[in-house]
C-alpha cells in the first residue's frame, strides 16, 4: 500500500470526493494558497476557485452559508483553520446545522463537514490549542470524528463528506506529518467502528486522535512491566463504538480513558460513566482518566508539557489500575 502523510491522505480524500461528486466544494480562509497547513495545496488548480473557495475572515459566514448551501443540494466542506475559531460560528453549527433536520420535521438535511483542526501544536497558546470535542458530542444532530492515522484520515473524511448529517471533523495539527499506509481509491471507514490498535487482556485503554499514539507507546512500556494493554482507537466519538469498548472491558475488567482535552466534562467522562452504568459488575478496579487539568493552555513549552498526556502518565495510571484489588 502506498505511504502517505495524514495531511496528504485528507487531501486525497477531499480530491476524490470532489471528483466523484460535483456538488462537493470547500470554503475557508486562504484555501486558494493551500490553507494554513497546506491541506488544500493544489486543489484550486484542480477544481477551480469556484469549488475551492477563498473566504473572508468570517467564520460565522463560512459555517452559516455552508448551512444554507447544504440545504440547497451541495456538500460543503467547511475549513475552520483552528477549532478555536469555530467558536465564532457556534450558533451556525449548533443552533442551525445540528437542529435543522429535526426542527423542520425531516424536511431538510445539512450534509456539511466542518473541519476543525485541534490540539496542542508548536506553542500556540490558549486560543489556538483547544480540543473541545466533548462539546459536540453533547449536541444532538452532530457526528464527531477524530482520526488518528493517515488511513483513517482518508477513510473517515470520505465517509464524512458522504454523510447526510453535519459532521465535526477534527484533525490533529500535530499529526499532519505522520506517515502511514493509505489504501488507494474507495477506502471508506464507517462511523462508530472503533479500531483495536493492540489486543490485550489486562486493561482497556480507550483513546482517539493523537493520544492513540501516546497510548500505544504506553502499551509497549506496560508490556515491559508485564501488563498486557488493549488499545482502542474510537475514531468517531459520536457515534462511538460502545460495543467494542464494552467487550474489551468485560474481558479486561479495567478501563482507562486517555485524551488530550481537559478532563472535567471531557468525553472520557462519558465513556467512564457509560461503562460504569452498564458494566459495573465487570469492573475489577476503579476506572481511570488521563487527561489535561482544567487550565487554559500556556505558551511556554514547560508549562505546556505540564498539561500534556504522556506515555509515562498513562503507564502510571495503568499500573495503579492493575494494583487495585
Amino acid at each position, binding site marked *: 500500500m502506498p505511504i502517505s502523510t495524514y495531511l496528504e491522505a485528507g487531501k486525497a480524500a477531499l480530491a476524490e470526493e470532489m471528483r466523484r461528486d460535483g*456538488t462537493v*466544494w470547500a470554503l475557508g480562509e486562504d484555501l486558494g494558497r493551500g490553507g494554513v497547513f497546506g491541506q488544500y495545496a493544489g486543489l484550486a488548480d484542480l477544481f477551480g476557485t*469556484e*469549488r475551492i*473557495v477563498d*473566504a*473572508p475572515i*468570517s467564520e*460565522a*459566514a463560512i*459555517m*452559516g*452559508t*455552508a*448551512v*444554507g*448551501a*447544504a*440545504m*440547497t*443540494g*451541495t456538500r*460543503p466542506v467547511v475549513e475552520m483553520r483552528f477549532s478555536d475559531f469555530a467558536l465564532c460560528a457556534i*450558533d*451556525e453549527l449548533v*443552533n*442551525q446545522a445540528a437542529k*435543522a*433536520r*429535526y*426542527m*423542520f*420535521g*425531516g*424536511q*431538510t438535511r445539512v450534509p456539511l463537514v466542518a473541519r476543525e483542526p485541534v490540539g496542542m501544536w508548536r506553542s500556540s497558546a490558549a486560543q489556538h490549542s483547544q480540543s473541545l470535542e466533548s462539546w459536540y458530542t453533547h449536541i*444532538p*444532530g*452532530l*457526528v464527531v470524528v477524530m482520526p488518528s492515522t493517515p488511513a483513517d484520515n482518508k477513510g473517515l473524511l470520505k465517509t464524512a463528506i458522504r*454523510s*447526510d*448529517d453535519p459532521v465535526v471533523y477534527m484533525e490533529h495539527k500535530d499529526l499532519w506529518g505522520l506517515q502511514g499506509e493509505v489504501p488507494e481509491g474507495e477506502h471508506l471507514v464507517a*462511523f*462508530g467502528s472503533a479500531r483495536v490498535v493492540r489486543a490485550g487482556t489486562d486493561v482497556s485503554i480507550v483513546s482517539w486522535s493523537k493520544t492513540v499514539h501516546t497510548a500505544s507507546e504506553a502499551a509497549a512500556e506496560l508490556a515491559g512491566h508485564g501488563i498486557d494493554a488493549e488499545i482502542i482507537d474510537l475514531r468517531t466519538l*459520536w*457515534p*462511538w*463504538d*460502545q*460495543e467494542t469498548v464494552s467487550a474489551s472491558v468485560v474481558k479486561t475488567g479495567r478501563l482507562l480513558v486517555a485524551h488530550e482535552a481537559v478532563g472535567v466534562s471531557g468525553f472520557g467522562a462519558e465513556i467512564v460513566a*457509560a461503562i460504569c452504568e452498564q458494566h459495573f459488575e465487570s469492573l475489577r478496579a476503579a476506572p481511570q482518566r488521563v487527561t489535561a487539568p482544567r487550565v487554559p493552555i500556556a505558551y511556554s513549552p514547560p508549562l505546556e508539557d505540564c498539561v500534556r498526556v504522556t506515555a509515562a502518565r498513562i503507564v502510571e495510571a495503568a499500573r495503579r489500575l492493575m494494583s487495585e484489588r
Partner: protein
Amino acid sequence: MVKPSPPQVSANVDKRRLLAHYRNMCRVRAFEETALEALEEGLVPGPLHLSIGQEAVASGVCANLARDDILLSTHRGHGHTLMKGASPLAMMRELLGREGGCCGGKGGSMHIADFSVGMLGANGVVGANILIATGAAHAIKLKGESRVAVCIFGDGAINRGPFLEGLNWAKIFALPVLFFCEDNQFAATTRSCAVSAGPGPSARARSFGIQSVTVNGNDVLEVDAIVRDTLASVRAGQGPRFIHALTYRLAGHTATDTAGYRDGDEVAERWRQDPIARAAAMLVDAGMAASELEDMNDEAGLAMRAVLDEARASPWPEDRHTHTHVQDTHGPGLVGGD
C-alpha cells in the same frame, strides 16, 4: 377596522393585481387572528409573533417568487410562509404542535417552514437566516441554476454580526440573493432607532457596494413593483440587492405582549396606515364595491376558522417522533436512520 387615511391612488393601478394582494393580505391577517384566538383558547403551546400590519411585505415579496425560488424568514414568518405557498392547515397544525404540521409539530411558529415550496424556514435566532439565505444563493450559483434566494429579516437583525458577514459574502461572490429588511420599527420592546447607529439599513448595505432602495412597506403595490424590478436584476446575475421596507408592528412583540411601552395614539395613527385597509380603499376608488371586499375578507376568516377546526381535531404526533430526524447514526447501538 379603523378608517384608513385616504390612500394615494395611482393612475394606472393594476386592479387585478391589487385585488389579489388584498385577498392575500386578508388571508394572512385571518390566519394570524385565528392563530391568536387559538392561543387565547390555550391551543398554541408556544410563543406567537404576529405580523399584523405588515402583510403587504409578505404579499408584495412573494408575488414575485416562483415556487423554486428560496425564501428565508424570521420568527415573525407566518405571512411569508403562507404567501410562499405553504398550506394554512399544515401551518396551523404546526402552531398547535399536531401531526400533519408542516414540521410534524417539532418546530412550531418560530420554525415554520415548507421546503416543498422553497420556504426554508423561520428562525429562532435573529439574523441567522441571513447567512443561510446567502449560502442557498451560493449553492444556486455553484449549480448554475436560475432561481434566486430572498431573505426577509427585521430591523433588529441589522445589529448582528451575521448581517455584515452575509452581505459582504453575497457581494464578493456576486450571489443571486435579495436582502429584504422588514422594518417594523421595533426589536421586541426596543425602538430600533435607539440602538441602531447611522443613517439606516440601506447605508449599511451600500457600504458593501450593494444597491439599496427604501420602500413604503405598507403599500403593497409599491413593495410588489420594487421587488419585481430588483429581482429582475438579481435574476440577471447582477449580484445581491437590498430593499428596506418601512412598516409598523401593530400588535405586541409576541401575542402576549401588550406593548405598554408605546402610546395608544401612536398605534392608532399607525392603524390608519393599515396596508389592508389601504388596499381596500384604493380598490373602492378604482370602482370595487366595498361589500365585495368585505365578503372577501369574511371568506378568508371563515376559511381560517375551518383550518383551525381541522387542526384542533388533528392528533398529536406519535411519541416515537421524539427520536426521528435526529441523525442517521445514533451512536451506541447504532440504531439506524429514520
